[in-house]
């Protein structure tokens, strides 16, 4: 079972790594995002969002839904750390006495 898991993980890693060659080169002006969406953001950001900062306009306004879930992930990470590290046994499976060595 363990060998199977390792094989699947190695296969998936190889697959993901090989997909890198299909990505556009960084800074390539001919790549498809740089063809239509980037010029629109640069020219329209101040008019659309009222913010002279393109980064803030993109992060908080055009991509607001993405940032909302980033915030949620942050909250959940804090909650998870609390649940893992705290001594409270609420909601945990009862531990058997035999588990202690």
């Amino acid at each position, binding site marked *: 079972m363990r060998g199977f898991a390792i094989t699947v993980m190695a296969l998936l890693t190889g697959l993901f790594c090989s997909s890198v060659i299909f990505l556009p080169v960084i800074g390539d002006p001919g790549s498809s995002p740089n063809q239509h969406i980037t010029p629109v953001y640069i020219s329209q950001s101040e008019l659309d969002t009222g913010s002279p900062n393109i980064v803030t306009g993109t992060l*908080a306004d055009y991509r*607001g839904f993405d940032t909302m879930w980033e915030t949620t992930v942050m909250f959940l990470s804090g909650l998870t750390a609390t649940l893992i590290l705290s001594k409270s046994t609420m909601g945990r499976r009862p531990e058997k006495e035999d588990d202690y060595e």
Partner: protein
Amino acid sequence: MMKDPFGGILLNIAFRLLVPFSVVYAVYVLILGESSPGGGFQAGVVMGFGIVLARLILGEESTIFNIKLKNSLALAGCGTFIYTMAGWLTLAGGGKFLDYSFLPFSLEPAHELHALGILMIEIGVTVCVMMTILNIMDVVVKRSEDDGSAE
């Protein structure tokens, strides 16, 4: 307040200089993040730094900057709620989710509404990030204290 020391020149300087500076600077980064580099995440980190420093210097018994674990957890959730609330307000105003033009307030130029919406969500992000930092620190400190007393 200025008379009683915190236990050494380093701690005095750290508390009296760094803590107020970082808290004020965090508010500056939050408010001006819309038009200059900065924003909610950075403001939360800087403010969390100031409060963590105050906690480290003043200790567990202090009455200021001492946010209990359950309060910090609840406030982190409140930060996320403020963000989502901005989205629901735009829905109530008749627009799409997080489309700040439809916020139900009357401000004259349309992009002022966008500025208000951006400020609103960044306050939410700041509260969430700051309280999450305090929360994780609190839980780690409590855990290590528990382990120390058990041995």
